[in-house]
């Protein structure tokens, strides 16, 4: 490396040093520590004690751990496909001009800005068995609504329904993607006699598929981070029916004070997210089309 080049590198590093310092102190250091903690017994008030792979071995036989994985997977299996389909549908409907369309776009987007605690409060009230708006509306058509948050099967369903209220961000991204589909493609398809549904399946979906892939991956990461809503609304219950992975991690670390075990949970969480992201990429390879520019 010449001196000029070394000097330039130094200048560059100086410019990015705010980020670099934060990256080392608050990202690399905690990651390094958590590798070490995950191999120790660390009750927070005493120094960590080396136990090797014990925490990981304990995980395998921990019913609560498996329960939270199943719960999180069930939640993801419903909320991601439903949310993606709904966001796409809303985006295609919103893909038109006019004041009313803009107003509805705002109505769909605003819920994503609501602080998560407030969102939880609003939906506690929405799902209230006797006085909530949802059971009130169901009552109008003669259905006796369930006691949503107090029954194991319905509680998870309630959280999935709630998650659909927050698809505004994805819908707006899809809308931008839809507007980027070249109209020449639609015209060509129309000349070939392809109908409305055919154009959506054979033109729209392939063209915006990279955007869909990106959103699905973001949604997978978000699912493994679900915490505040069940923490506030159901405390993981009834039973452990809405006990999510991140809640167990939080409880292990800050309620039971088992930093070692919590760190092992965090590493397994990272591996699960990486695995699911890689899986999504592999499955999608046949279905995602990247435009050659």
């Amino acid at each position, binding site marked *: *490396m010449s001196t000029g080049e070394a000097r*330039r*590198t130094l200048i*560059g*590093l100086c*410019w*990015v040093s*705010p*980020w670099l*310092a*934060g*990256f080392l*102190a*608050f*990202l690399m*250091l*905690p*990651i390094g*520590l*958590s590798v070490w*903690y995950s191999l120790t017994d660390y009750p927070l008030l005493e120094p960590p004690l080396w136990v090797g792979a014990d925490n990981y071995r304990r995980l395998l036989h921990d019913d609560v751990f498996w329960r939270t994985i199943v719960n999180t997977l069930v939640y993801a299996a419903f909320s991601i496909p439903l949310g993606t389909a709904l966001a796409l549908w809303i985006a295609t*409907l*919103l893909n*038109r001009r006019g004041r*009313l*369309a803009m107003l*509805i776009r705002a*109505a*769909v987007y*605003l*819920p994503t*800005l*609501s*602080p998560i*605690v407030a969102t939880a*409060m*609003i*939906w*506690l*009230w929405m799902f*209230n068995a*006797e*006085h909530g*708006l949802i059971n009130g509306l169901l009552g109008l058509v003669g259905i006796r609504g369930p006691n949503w948050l107090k029954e194991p099967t319905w509680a998870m369903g309630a959280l999935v329904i709630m998650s659909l*209220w927050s698809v505004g961000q994805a819908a707006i991204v899809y809308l931008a993607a839809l507007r*980027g589909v070249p109209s020449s493609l639609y015209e060509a398809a129309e000349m070939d006699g392809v109908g*409305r549904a055919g154009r959506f399946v054979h033109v729209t979906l392939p063209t915006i598929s990279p955007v869909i892939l990106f959103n699905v991956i973001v949604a997978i*990461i978000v699912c*493994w*981070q679900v*915490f505040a809503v069940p923490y*506030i609304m159901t405390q993981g219950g009834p039973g452990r029916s809405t006990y999510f992975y*991140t809640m167990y*991690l939080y409880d292990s*670390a800050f309620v039971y004070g088992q*930093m070692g075990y919590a760190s092992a949970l*965090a*590493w397994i969480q*990272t591996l699960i*997210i990486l695995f699911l992201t890689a899986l999504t990429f592999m499955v999608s390879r046949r279905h995602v089309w990247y435009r050659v520019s």
Partner: protein
Amino acid sequence: MSAQHSTVGARIAWVALIVIGVAYAAPLGWMVLTSAKSAEQTLAGSSVLPTPLADAPGQIARNYAAVWSDPVVDFPLYLRNSLWVTGLSMVGMMIACSITAYGFARVRWRGRDTLFGVVLVSMMIPFAVLMAPLYVVFRELGWIGTFLPLWAPAWLAFGGGFNIFLLRQFYRTIPAELDEAARLDGCSHWGIFRHVILPLSRPALGVVALFHFTAVWNDFLAPLIFLTHRDQFTLALGLHLYQSQAGNTPWNLLMAASTLVVAPVLVVFVLTQGMLQEGIATSGLKE
């Protein structure tokens, strides 16, 4: 035939859109309407609107006054805490990210693109994975039970991967000839940054400020972990405390408190709508 078919289709689409709009607006609308009712009325459940409507203004005043001056949950204090933490965090994030993005966009150096890749990858790491070891780091620093964990890391662009990305993209749309001209006038990198890049990147900085404001204002998990005293609670924690305190908080008051927490975000967003659209449209995010 085909034209008629499409008008019927268009009408169905409009009906579906309106139903969607109403459904998405309903929870927030119902929150506000509930906050205008008396406690008995919320449990009577016969009407969505407060009845009689003429009593609503007086009821609103009583409900919001009751929330604001609650003897246990000190909302005025929590509002000040939230403003303090959010403000400090925003300023730090904007300074750190705008400087860092300059290094990635305007200085040529070895390893730059590799390190930028690291920025992008680090965006994928969830906070939940870091929270246990971060707690230990902050404890060693003596920060637990202070506001520091909530704003100080932002001064080192912690959690700012997306902001750096956005600003770098924006800087790259600023013509390099402007840099050259400034350099001929004797400007250093710092001079170019201060006098050319920063003044031109106001829209993108506005977007960063807005995103970060909502993220910090809305955050629940980090304050829950790092704050220990009730006096330091942010509005988000205060709202949770209000709901979970002994006895049942009446729904009308809980919805009034929720409205108080949601309103600032919505107001800021509506006021900055135009700036946001300009910022996103010009940042090169949409190609």
